[in-house]
């Protein structure tokens, strides 16, 4: 993988929280532009800690994170935060403005966009997630699935280099789950999807990483990793009842 075209490059990342709890013990991986990668791992594996390193909210341990070749650090923070769009697990945490429009406009406005250009950004972002007609509604009046889509739009409006989704399918009913998958497939950005939802990972991401005990334990084709029973058991990953990854047609790899 050529490092020049890599959207995200993490090397030797280790980190402990100020209260002494250590979450990462040296993480290495890299994601090429346009790839869709799933980051799998049991609870407490350090997934959220890793995500918070990607845009420099956490720092101070060892190792480096590079986004499109740019090292994450104080001097490029604004640029990094524009390039890395994180969709958090709970849309209620992500949506804090009084209307959908203002919420989606928050990121680009913080980056200095104004007037018609800003409106255009907001409109396209909402269209991409199919929420254009909800512009002036307060977010807390929307359904959970709609709120998650707006949360994705708030990040898309910043035109990120890489989209990081934390548990995108949690609490979604099957229909909303499928709608979100369709939206994610239609986007042409690099995606890192952090999830427990193994079928969803298989459906959307050709490649997967397993994060366990603060290090990358496996990196390969999602279908192959999920079919490796020993590997899965070793890292407390369990497929839902009755689901067999070998019986599912592997989605063709689309660049």
């Amino acid at each position, binding site marked *: 993988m050529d490092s020049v075209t890599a959207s995200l490059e993490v090397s030797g990342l280790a980190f*402990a929280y*100020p209260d002494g709890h250590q979450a990462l013990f040296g993480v290495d991986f890299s994601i090429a532009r346009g790839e869709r990668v799933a980051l799998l791992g049991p609870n407490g594996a350090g997934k959220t800690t890793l995500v918070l390193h990607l845009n420099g909210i956490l720092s*101070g341990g060892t190792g480096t994170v590079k986004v499109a070749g740019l090292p994450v650090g104080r001097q490029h923070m604004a640029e990094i935060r524009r390039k890395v769009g994180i969709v958090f697990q709970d849309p209620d945490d992500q949506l804090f403005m009084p209307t959908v429009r203002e919420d989606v406009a928050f990121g680009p406005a913080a980056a200095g966009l104004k007037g018609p250009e800003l409106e255009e950004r907001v409109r396209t972002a909402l269209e991409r997630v199919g929420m254009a007609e909800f512009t002036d509604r307060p977010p807390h009046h929307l359904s959970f699935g709609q709120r998650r889509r707006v949360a994705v739009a708030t990040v898309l409006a910043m035109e990120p280099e890489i989209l990081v989704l934390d548990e995108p399918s949690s609490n979604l009913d099957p229909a909303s789950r499928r709608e979100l998958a369709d939206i994610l497939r239609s986007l042409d950005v690099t995606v890192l999807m952090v999830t427990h939802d193994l079928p969803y990972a298989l459906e959307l991401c050709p490649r997967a990483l397993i994060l366990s005990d603060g290090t990358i334990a496996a990196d390969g084709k999602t279908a192959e990793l999920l079919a490796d029973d020993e590997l899965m058991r070793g890292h407390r990953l369990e497929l839902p009842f009755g689901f067999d990854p070998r019986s599912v047609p592997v989605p063709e790899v689309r660049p």
Partner: protein
Amino acid sequence: MHVPDGFINAPISVATGAVAVAAVAVSLRGARRELDERTAPLAGLVAAFIFAVQMLNFPVAAGTSGHLLGGALAAILVGPYTGVLCVSVVLLMQGILFADGGLTALGVNITDMAVVTTVVAYAVFRGLVRILPRGRRSITVSSFVAALLSVPAAALAFTLLYWIGGTTDVSIGKVATAMVGVHILIGIGEAAITALTVGAVVAVRPDLVYGARGLQQKLKLRVNGELVDVPDAQPVTAPAAARSHRKVWVAGLVTSLLLAGFVSFYASANPDGLEKVASDKGIDARTEEHATADSPLADYGVKDVDDARLSGGLAGVLGVGVTVVAGTGVFWAVRRRRGTEDVSPARTSSV
């Protein structure tokens, strides 16, 4: 203890306004070091907490009203500078939104409830933490005592302000007795809530308690299965800050001296309106004899203070005095903190 409009005379209101502005300015500079991205919302939460706590008002006989103050909690959780800012924000928003505390009395209220409580509480807290053995229990005990003392201290400060600038000549003895008496009781409640909150936070998220930063262990990272020390490079950013802090402190002192001096000049050149009218109408029969007496201080009874010149002069003295105390307290605290930072790695090995 929120002072309404028209309660304290104009010179004192302006003087305390100057003190408040200086204190907030100094705190704004200092807070940049205390606050980082992850603790900024903590400051907001502390402010919200204090807001809620201050809504519980008990009427006090000859004072205005009494309630929990929250300055100690703020100083211990987010640090003294940010603590001053938090309480000031609370007072500002209470004035605007709830009309609790007059807008023109904002200076009085900030000086009394934000600066005095925070500085007293933090000084006591730091002193105790230094004496007591290191540990979570000491943090909780120190918070209790700091909060307990900070409330009567604010009551005293209020009494002092009232003595110099009150628009009604209620006997200072009565005010002091009522204010301090009631506020010792309130101090006990404040101490309990502060200690419980700080104790709970220290137990679960010690990284959130500013006053407990000395407790943190030196970090170890395990890279490739082996224990490796964190490189020593990053935490020490002190030297540059030290110089700028001293500068800020001196600048703050000079500014408040100038402002206070200006105010006292203004006050003595133009006797306060209310007093002028009062004396024209012969309502207050004040004596001027002390000006020529051998020992002026001996004559400074309570009621004499509505002499415009004296009250103006005292306003200046008080303003500068409070600023010096506040500035020194904060400065001392900063130095203490730096001291513990330097010492802590060595000490942790013995823990």
